[in-house]
């Protein structure tokens, strides 16, 4: 056997691994000391780094308060917070969706916000019990491909998408939180039966299923399908990446008060574990400052929710995109929506 020749790389690898393990233990020790030493606000962000990272950096620049951010998926972080409970290191939770915030509120994990913070935002866009507040608005829209669909032919209501002329032409992301919020809103406004009938008709009309809103947008853009249900800012994201002029996909806002015009929010909450830290609240207030609201309008292309800041060019005013008459907190009732989507075969 030639074992002697083989021993050397194995020994080197062993040494390297031992060094790494030592680093890990050392790192772990110093990490927890760091946390105790400086009091950075610990944020669990269900919003991506590209979107909120620069904004949080501005907060640190203007206040001197350090922020330590953990980025993740909105729902996965909510599950992690539920798992962590009162031992969570997190002080702030940023969510892409009102339902996740309401769910944490129901679990008793959120601290109440003061009225002066809540009052910056219209009552529609904050938690009924005052534990979370919307920081930006996200409108549901209908994507269309302007090569294959004439503007005059676009429907006014999401209910018209069951028309045979759109057979196999409409994309949805049934697993996506924003689609499920929309279905929840439909169950609340039109009733369980009407919602089930609509979904069943959509399935019968060969609705096309995608994994997320970006995939729907790209499918509409490539002409694979003509229409898609998604949120308004996905169009702006793509336009920024590849240029608006090269896009065939466009946003269409459905009629006011149509359930397809739901405006959901991305929002913020202070966790009970962060209630003692005044800096945590400062961060929430910062997100509602005109500086941050303008950032949302011009960088993430979401609707600012605080009075006095205008949305991005080309968007109708928020007051005109009137959604259905529901409380956003009701969107936490996802179990019923999931059961419904499962029943009709979409999940």
């Amino acid at each position, binding site marked *: 056997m030639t074992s002697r020749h*083989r021993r050397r790389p194995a020994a080197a690898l062993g040494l390297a*691994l031992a060094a790494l*393990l030592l680093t890990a233990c050392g790192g772990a020790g110093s990490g927890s000391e760091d946390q105790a030493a400086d009091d950075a606000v*610990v944020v669990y962000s269900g919003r991506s780094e590209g979107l909120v990272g620069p904004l949080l950096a501005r907060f640190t620049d203007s206040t001197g308060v350090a922020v330590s951010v953990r980025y993740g998926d909105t729902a*996965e972080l909510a599950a992690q917070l539920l*798992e962590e409970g009162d031992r969570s290191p997190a002080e702030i939770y940023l969510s892409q969706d009102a339902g996740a915030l309401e769910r944490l509120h129901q679990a008793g994990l959120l601290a109440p916000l003061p009225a002066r913070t809540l009052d910056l935002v219209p009552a529609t866009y904050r938690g009924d019990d005052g534990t979370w507040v919307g920081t930006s608005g996200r409108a549901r829209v209908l994507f269309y491909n302007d090569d294959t669909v004439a503007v005059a032919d676009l429907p006014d209501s999401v209910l018209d998408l069951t028309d045979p002329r759109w057979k196999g032409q409409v994309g949805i992301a049934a697993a996506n939180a924003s689609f499920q919020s929309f279905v929840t809103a439909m169950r609340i406004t039109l009733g369980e039966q009407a919602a089930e009938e609509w979904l069943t008709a959509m399935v019968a009309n060969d609705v096309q299923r995608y994994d997320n809103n970006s995939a729907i947008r*790209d*499918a509409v853009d490539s002409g694979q399908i003509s229409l898609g249900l998604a949120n308004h800012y996905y169009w702006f994201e793509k336009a920024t990446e590849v240029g608006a002029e090269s896009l065939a996909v466009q946003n269409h806002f459905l009629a006011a008060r149509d359930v397809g015009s739901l405006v959901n929010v991305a929002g913020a909450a202070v966790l009970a574990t962060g209630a003692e830290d005044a800096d945590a609240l400062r961060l929430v207030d910062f997100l509602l400052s005109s500086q941050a609201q303008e950032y949302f309008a011009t960088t993430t292309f979401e609707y600012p929710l605080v009075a006095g800041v205008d949305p991005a060019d080309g968007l109708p005013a928020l007051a005109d995109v009137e959604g259905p008459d529901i409380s956003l907190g009701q969107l936490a009732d996802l179990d019923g929506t999931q059961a419904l989507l499962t029943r009709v075969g979409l999940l």
Partner: protein
Amino acid sequence: MAATLTARGPARQRSTRTSGVTALHVLATAASLVAIVPLGYLVARAGGLGWGTVWDVLAQERTVALAVRSVGLAAAVALTCVVVGVPVAWLAARTDVPGGRWWLAVAALPLAVPSYVTAYTWVAAVPSVQGFLPAWLLLSLSCLPYVVLPVAAVLSRVDPALEDVARTLGAGPVSAFRRAVSPLLLPAAAAGGLLAALYVLSDFGAVSLLRFDSFTRVIYTSFRASFDRTTAAVLALVLVVLAVGFVLLERRARGRDDRWRVGGGVSRVPTQIGLGRLRLPALAALVALYGLALGVPAVMLAVLMLRGRRAWDAGEWLAAAGNTVLASGVGTGIALVLAVPIGMLAARRVDRWTRVVESAAYLGHALPGVLVGLSLVSLGLAVLPGLYQSLALLGFGYAVLFLSNAIGSVRSAAVQVPPVLEEVGRTLGAGGLTTWRRITVPMTAPGITAGALLVLVTAMKELPATLMLRPTGMDTLATELWTRTAVGAYAEAAPYAVTLVLAAAVPAFLLAQLVGRTA
């Protein structure tokens, strides 16, 4: 010529002669307890729901249908990997196909491309790609190295005297290969097929991009939409059962495992087989196979990278690359500490307890990373709150997930150490530890190193558990990639995908070298 003995009888004696609990038993059992932490969590969660409700979830028609779909995909991929992988390994390790052993390096490279990246590049190239067929093909291409590498390693080591003896006894070349060599390949091929099957069971990224409804995809869906950990836990228990099924199947296919040789002199280097007229067709087949597995992702990543408009941050990129190496290195270290006793015990013992211990260690590989992550969140906070969200806990998570990748290599290396050598060491007066250090470790070192490299390359690509367990503020290449693809910034994500592939290519390449060198 070396007198060769492939023992079967003596092994049986050995296991009965030295039965009883040894230190190795204790160590291996402790190590496998670590691997079943997620299972304990799932049972606790599901139990909290009440067993009646658990039954309701399980008995749904849809649950059964999904289980069938997932098993079908996993079995199809595993079989494809074995059927394609064994000839590929043979071509690369034993024949005069142009390129020769360089093909082993190429064959290791799909390990470096995360299956979600492969799937993404294919979807970007052909948007209509979806469903069972593409999922089957792409996952097979991704998992092929699990079979090619261990089989090539065995082929490089097999003493050609075995075939010679078969030939002198009147067997033709094909029959000699089938009867003398293929039984030696079976354990390696079966273990590789098992890893492929378990990988497919736990895969989320590729099946979701290709829109194939698998069990794991539905677990994620229900989990993401309703923050419902309980239903996800119940469904994951089904995955555990399916995984155990595959482990048992592999055990049957593997058969008995004593493949050591003793004899005067050394094993001869296997002869190269001339392919003759088939040389070029064989080359064409390899080029076509790896063109699909590597060429398409490479070209599409390059196209996407050039399409991007935004500048990228070199500091951020460098930090992510460093963190990736650091975290996966720590994970590999912990995985090895756990895998070596389990692999050694599995090689030496055939008792029932050993089988249970070894099987348990495979479970982590079959579970969705998000549930392994949650189980460690729960355990970390309850047992070691000081280590919560530290590099050490993240590494521990990798070890739980990828322990199984190392066990197979350690075991296949250890079964080739003739126990008689250790016994000789003992009779010459060396203690157990000295014997282990001077005989067992040197002889199994290549296998242990191969196992370490396989864990390293897999851990580098891990995403869901990394998101939950990493220290707050620490980014790896996989999380940076995810951050960008999650918001649809594919062009911006491409440099991270390329770096991840290149970084993972290093251990993959070393692995291929190691496999080649054992000749």
